[in-house]
């Protein structure tokens, strides 16, 4: 099969899966839908690998292929076609996305088994994968925006999956609206770029950009900044990040797939894809790098104090994406994408392990209620530790290489990027602390009753489930959470999925080890051949080894600090919290972003709406304009005394009859 056929198949399998599942929801037994969904994504992954092989079979100059399905909205100089771009970057992305998705589907087959919305879940999940693949394969801005919005919608469907919970529907609309804000940024950014280049097609845009825009052209900077709005909304960078922690209302596999491994990294992909534009508009790129750095630190600080297990990982995701955004904005493209890949492995793994713990706790996510699961759940524990060590950057796990690659390239870039590198090390230390804080609190210490019961071979079941956020009793009749829970220790498919991800997290670093094996860098080269900085940025040997040593030391130090605080001296954290009450409150309130946005945006709009509905409509629209018109009509009718009978309604009826009669007269006379 040809390269383009394979690439279209990558897209078609998940779409077909979603449609088939949706249309056969009553015809097939529910269990079949899980396997249809998993199979569709598996086939998509196979096609992605086929695309990779076919692409590598071509010459290096020949590795950017555009394939057009049909004209989409070609008019008035707008060249919007349904086209895909197959190049190393998009092929890299489809392999990561479809590969991780296959494993998460496999995990969900068991994890969601007792959920009444099983079929709906897999239809949504397949639709999501289709959207994500469309996003990364898009060959022009129009299709990129379509994929961009589709993943936002899929994310909304899945955040609100347990739609009986008011917290889930509120989180859903919040995520959706912020994502639409991002879409609008993308659209407006596209206009700025389109105005210069006259094309929506990526390759043509990049070709034209050099002539159309001067260095740091204000139009291009504006365009790129607006693209960044899109990237930040999708990738949960400050200040557009507030939806991501709330998105943890969705089922855990959703958090693993969408809100950790794939969708939230779309912003990183976007910046990498648009690198010719960002290199022409370095001011915009600098903004990206600074915001990425700020997000990295802010999120890490919040992750230190959050007590919800999934939210710790969510803030960690934000923080790690901060690293990636910082990297691709500083022209360390391969490093950013490398971290994107390893992060997809270990963060999906962490979420899966967390899901297993939450299932053992019968839905409870609060770290304060957990403890001592180490003996009861050895497999989950092992996976969590592997994920945690990888996240903390302990050699020779994959996260170690990818994070150090980013930081060393920041130093290599020089100037103020050095400061970003230093802060990157600070972030690495914080990462190790909050990660192991979470692991020690969930798995060490006295076993909680749930863990005890599990040690004796029984899975804990709550008498009734309550929503942790509101205390509301859950409605188990439909949807969440189903009477049964599934933990990795007892489910083969969950074990396979987690085992595979653990192996990838451990070994994934092998594709890019500085001075040893730089295959990822070389693989991506055809996409970045026009980048001035791609080849230039290569740190020297000693710098690499010093950097790696420092990174590993900080990671180990962080784990040691966490061990001291939460295992050796468990009374210590409370004392620190007391002494630093102000900082703790500030972090625990998530830096008050929600409150500020509520005050600045939500409330003024709500107030305007109430004013419009209650006052303005009555006084101006009805009072001045409608009544004014009636008065005018009445006055006019009073002027023609002879005809008018004193009542407005008769006058109007007369007009009506008059016009109809006039029409009839002309009809007949014709």
């Amino acid at each position, binding site marked *: 099969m040809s390269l383009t056929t394979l690439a279209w198949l990558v897209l078609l399998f998940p779409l077909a899966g979603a449609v088939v599942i949706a249309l056969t929801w009553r015809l097939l037994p529910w269990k079949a839908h899980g396997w249809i969904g998993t199979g569709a994504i598996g086939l998509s992954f196979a096609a992605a690998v086929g695309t990779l092989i076919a692409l590598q079979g071509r010459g290096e100059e020949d590795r950017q292929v555009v394939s057009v399905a049909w004209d989409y909205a070609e008019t008035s100089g707008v060249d919007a076609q349904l086209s895909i771009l197959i190049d190393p970057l998009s092929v890299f992305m489809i392999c990561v996305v479809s590969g991780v998705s296959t494993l998460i589907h496999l995990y969900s087959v068991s994890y969601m088994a007792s959920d009444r919305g099983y079929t709906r879940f897999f239809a949504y999940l397949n639709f999501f994968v289709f959207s994500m693949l469309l996003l990364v394969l898009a060959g022009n801005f129009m299709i990129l925006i379509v994929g961009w919005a589709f993943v936002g919608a899929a994310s909304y469907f899945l955040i609100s999956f347990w739609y009986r919970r008011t917290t889930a529907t509120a989180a859903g609309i919040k995520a959706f609206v912020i994502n639409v*804000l991002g879409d609008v940024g993308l659209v407006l950014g596209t206009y700025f770029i389109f105005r210069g280049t006259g094309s929506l097609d990526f390759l043509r845009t990049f070709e034209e950009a050099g002539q159309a825009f001067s260095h740091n052209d204000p139009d291009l900077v504006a365009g790129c900044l607006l693209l960044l709005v899109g990237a930040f909304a999708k990738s949960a960078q400050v200040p557009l990040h507030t939806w991501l922690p709330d998105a943890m209302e969705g089922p855990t596999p959703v958090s693993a797939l969408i809100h950790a491994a794939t969708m939230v990294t779309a912003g990183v992909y976007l910046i990498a894809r648009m690198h010719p534009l960002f290199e022409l508009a370095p001011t915009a790129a600098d903004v990206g790098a600074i915001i990425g750095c700020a997000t990295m630190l802010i999120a890490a600080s919040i992750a230190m104090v959050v007590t919800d297990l999934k939210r710790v990982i969510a803030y960690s995701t934000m923080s790690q994406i901060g690293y990636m955004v910082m990297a691709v904005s500083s022209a360390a493209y391969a490093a950013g994408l490398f971290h994107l890949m390893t992060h997809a492995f270990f963060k999906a793994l962490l979420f899966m392990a967390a899901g297993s713990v939450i299932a053992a706790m019968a839905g409870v996510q609060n770290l304060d209620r957990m403890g001592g699961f180490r003996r009861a759940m050895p497999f989950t524990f092992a996976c969590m530790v592997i994920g945690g060590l990888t996240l903390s950057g302990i050699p020779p796990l994959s996260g170690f290489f990818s994070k150090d690659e980013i930081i060393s390239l920041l130093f290599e870039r020089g100037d103020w990027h050095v400061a970003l590198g230093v802060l990157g090390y600070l972030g690495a230390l914080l990462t190790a602390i909050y990660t192991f804080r979470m692991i020690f609190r969930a798995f060490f210490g006295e076993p909680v009753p749930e863990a005890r019961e599990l040690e004796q071979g029984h899975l804990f079941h709550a008498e009734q489930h309550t929503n942790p956020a509101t205390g509301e009793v859950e409605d188990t009749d439909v949807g969440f959470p189903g009477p049964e829970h599934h933990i990795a220790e007892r489910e083969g498919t969950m074990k396979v999925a987690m085992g595979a991800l653990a192996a990838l997290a451990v070994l994934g670093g092998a594709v890019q080890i500085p001075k040893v094996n730089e295959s990822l860098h070389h693989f991506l080269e055809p996409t970045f051949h026009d980048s001035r900085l791609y080849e230039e940025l290569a740190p020297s040997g000693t710098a690499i080894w010093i950097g790696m040593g420092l990174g590993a030391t900080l990671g180990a130090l962080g784990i040691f600090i966490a061990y001291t605080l939460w295992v050796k001296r468990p009374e210590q954290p409370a004392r620190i919290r007391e002494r630093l009450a102000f900082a703790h409150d500030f972090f625990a309130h998530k830096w008050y972003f929600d409150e500020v946005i509520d005050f600045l945006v939500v409330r003024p709009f709500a107030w305007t709406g109430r004013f*419009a509905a209650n006052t303005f409509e009555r006084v101006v629209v*009805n009072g001045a304009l409608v009544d004014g018109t009636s008065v005018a009509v009445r006055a006019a009718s009073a002027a023609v005394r002879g005809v008018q009978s004193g009542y407005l309604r008769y006058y109007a009826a007369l007009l009506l009859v008059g016009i109809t009669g006039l029409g009839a007269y002309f009809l007949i006379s014709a």
Partner: protein
Amino acid sequence: MTIHLSILIFWPLALAVLGGLAPRRAAPVFALVGALVPLGYAVLMLLDFKAGGGLQYVTDDEWIAELGVHYKLGVDGVNAWLVALTALLFAASAVWLMLRPPVRASLFAVHFGIAETAVLGAFLAQDLALFVLFFDLMLVPFYFLVGQWGGPDRVAAAMKMVVYTLVGSLLMLAGAAATAVLSARGPAELTFVLSDLARNPLPESTQKWIFVTFALAFLIKMPAFPFHGWMPDAYRTMPLPALAVFSGVVSKVAAYGFLKLVMPLFPAAVADFKLALLIFGLASILYGSVQAFTQTNARLILGYSSMAQLGFIVVGLFAADAAGAGAQGALLQAVNHGLVVAPLFFVVALLVERAGTEDITAMGGMAVRAPVLAALFLISALATLAMPGSANFAGEFLILLGAFEAEMAVAFVASLGVVLASVYALRMYIRTMHNRLAPGVTSVDLSLRDAIVLVPLVLCIIAFALYPQQALRDSEPDVKASMAPVVQADGGAAAQTAEATP
């Protein structure tokens, strides 16, 4: 010279009258045939349509010789898809009415037939006087539909609607007469035929005041902010199947009027008043959106959201960018909005059946046992908020692009409306379908008779989303031609200012 268009226009009226005379049992069949035949006709015509082939299926008879009024009809790129949309929505409503007959069904059907004839006539008329006639005829059936079949306060609402919109219509009538009289070189050359009028442009000062009469009529009809005073009352009380076509196509006649009449006839005035109309458009977008996420009556949410969508159409038309993206997007959006808002009104009818109220704060949780209804509602809701991937997005993309090229600030303000649309559309969906089942609300899935109406409409939305290209290809040459005088006048004005500045 063909008779096809006359058949298309008067078929619904003829069948409705026959249905009124026929025995009561047969009346719904007459109404259905009355609506389905035009749909078939319109679809065939669309398939046969040649993009850029000028006016097609022309009928041209001298009607009132002494006034120069012609009975001239024709299909071009501007109206082809709107005609098809009209036929589709009326057919859907006719099916709905056959399966859920209202009281005095045959009389209802007569009014419905008149309405379809009037709307089709307005779209197809190629003579100014004929257009005005059909435009005013549209009001008659809806006056009775509101006044006799409406909910509480129907009489007051009907009066308000009629008086308010009639004032606009009368202004337009005066404007139309003035256009013909003033552009005629002598009494012998008096003509109302559009193509002839466009050839003899009026002096700019005359264009200006005539433009105001037309603009007022159309802005009231749409309705646009702040001329929408009649809308809430009429929407609150109009029977829902009538409201589906009213909101779906009647408001589009006004948008169409701008594109088909105002642009070619008063280009200089358009160039002068461009900014004012853009501001009316923006105000409609913002005000409509803000109201739509505040109102709790499902009908009003859709009513105000339509106002916002029509605001986008106004912005697209009056952006008058040189490439013509704005106008193209506006026309596409006119079709899109009709295609999306009609199923939404049917959905509202189903929601009201299940909840016994129109207040969305008293609804909730209806998705539980109604997954098909929820899915159809969700697709329509996402289309109405112009989610990328829907044809509505293609329309909005072009509109905003046009606005961006013409006045960048307008595009930025209008894009706020895109964000707000996601708030009101999802708010409505979540409040009705999600969360817990509210007391007194039942969750029952779509019955077959509802599915017959809703599923084809939603399939049309999906098909149009996958391939909006055909509509754009068909309309591009004629939309360009319609906008050309404006672009020229606007360019001239811009050049003058540029010369004056240094």
